[in-house]
């Protein structure tokens, strides 16, 4: 607002001065060539006098020199001053400033790329060390079965069972990996459903409140989902608590996710990579993460995501 006002006033003044000086210079230098073409009542007046005779016209190039030197002296300087003024006004606006915004976006982009990289690495590891190995085992067992089926049917039956178990294990792991990449329920039914499914799979009793949540942008839903997933895993693994509660609310312009347990507290963000990774994931969509975990509990993990894009 302030910039709009300053810029329009300064811009108009500087623009007018520049235009007057430019036109003055051209008119003064050239008027000896054409002043006599004009009727006397329309005679030009580039300086302090009317050009209505040859002597007057002969002096105008001198006036032109004055215009030209004023132009050269003033125009570049005022342009520079104008740009500095705009720069200063735009940059001195704290959190709302353009510079601050760019810094913020750069940081969240870096977070997003980092989250992306670690995720790809984890998925590669899970598929490579888990699922792929299981399928190799299935294939090896099938090869073996082919060899011994005729000679030793008794042993073949046993091997068949092992092969089926290996295939089942591969499928179980694959489902787990798929859910950890992007839970199908999240895509089909949204955050509230996906979180209630997480709660149902949780080893501890877990209540979910998600009234009137509706759908949020995919990036926000995904990040919010993983906040709940990670927080519930931590409750189960580290908090020694007996139950957890998840609250999802949508307020004007933001989605709030809160996971609370009844455990012993004292969660340390710097001890493991879980919470730090979570903070990065939240930051990648410009959300904020607050973790409150006093020594005697309980632990509350709260994430707020702006979603008025």
């Amino acid at each position, binding site marked *: 607002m302030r910039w709009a006002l300053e810029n329009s006033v300064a811009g108009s003044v500087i623009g007018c001065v520049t235009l007057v000086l430019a036109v003055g210079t051209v008119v003064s230098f050239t008027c000896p060539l054409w002043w006599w073409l004009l009727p006397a009542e329309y005679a030009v007046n580039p300086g302090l006098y009317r050009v209505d005779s040859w002597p007057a016209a002969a002096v105008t190039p001198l006036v032109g020199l004055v215009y030209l030197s004023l132009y050269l002296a003033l125009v570049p300087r005022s342009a520079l001053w104008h740009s500095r003024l705009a720069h200063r006004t735009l940059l001195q606006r704290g959190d709302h400033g353009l510079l601050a915004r760019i810094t913020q976006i750069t940081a969240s982009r870096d977070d997003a790329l980092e989250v992306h990289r670690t995720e790809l690495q984890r998925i590669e590891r899970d598929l490579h060390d888990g699922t792929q190995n299981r399928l190799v085992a299935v294939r090896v067992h099938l090869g073996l079965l082919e060899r011994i089926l005729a000679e030793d049917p008794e042993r073949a039956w046993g091997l068949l069972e092992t092969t*089926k178990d290996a*295939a*089942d294990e591969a*499928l*179980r792991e694959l*489902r787990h990996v*798929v*859910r950890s990449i992007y839970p*199908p*329920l999240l*895509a*089909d*039914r949204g955050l509230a*459903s996906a979180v*209630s*499914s997480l*709660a*149902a*799979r*949780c*080893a*501890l*009793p*877990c*209540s979910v409140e998600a009234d009137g949540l509706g759908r949020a942008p995919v990036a926000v839903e995904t990040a919010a989902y993983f906040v709940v997933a990670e927080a519930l895993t931590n409750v189960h693994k580290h908090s020694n608590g*007996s*139950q957890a509660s998840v609250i999802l609310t949508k307020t004007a312009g933001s989605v709030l996710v809160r996971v609370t347990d009844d455990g012993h507290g004292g969660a340390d963000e710097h001890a493991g990579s879980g919470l730090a990774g979570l903070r990065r994931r939240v930051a990648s969509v410009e959300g904020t993460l607050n973790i409150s975990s006093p020594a005697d509990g309980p632990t509350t993990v709260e994430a707020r995501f702006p979603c008025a894009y």
Partner: protein
Amino acid sequence: MRVLIAEDDVLLRQGLSLLLEVEGFEMVGAAQDAETFLELFDRHRPDTAVIDVRLPPNFSDEGLRAAAEIRRRVPNMPVLVLSAHVDHEYAGELLGSGTNGVGYLLKDRVGEVSDFVEALTRVARGGVALDPEVVDQLIGGRPAGDPLGSLTDREHQVLDLMAQGHDNAGICSLLGLSTPAVSKHIGAIFGKLGLSGPGNGHRRVQAVLTYLRK
């Protein structure tokens, strides 16, 4: 029994058709998408249908919607839905159209042929076949003080099987228990959960599912 299937993957479609034929079912058709499935359904009016949840064109929940659609056209039409992942939310949507003749299983279960055939037969006769993973979700994550917490381990096993849709005879053979023993456990479960009299097999399954979905 005349069966219609909907599965987009060629290999799986052929495998499933072959398996069902070998097991004595009459295959009336095998569709690769929901639209074809509904056409074939109207043309053949099968006794039961087996549908994959994810079908072309969007591969989200077309199969689930096709299942709901045929149950709208023919109330209580037996349908078994297969999925690469299962969730109690989808199960709830399926059961929302009535607990008669509804099945919802992980695709992996097809590999255990006799169990799969038994489940499909149960669904075709108006029963229920819910995947154990769905039942785990329905039973797990309950708050402290829930009556479910007071069940013994054995009663939990019986409840699991009931929620999966098994009748008394099925529970007896799966757990290796006698009929009176199973009846006793069922009576105890119903008492602890505050459900009304056991009734017959399907009514019991309904009562248990209604309780678990609360």
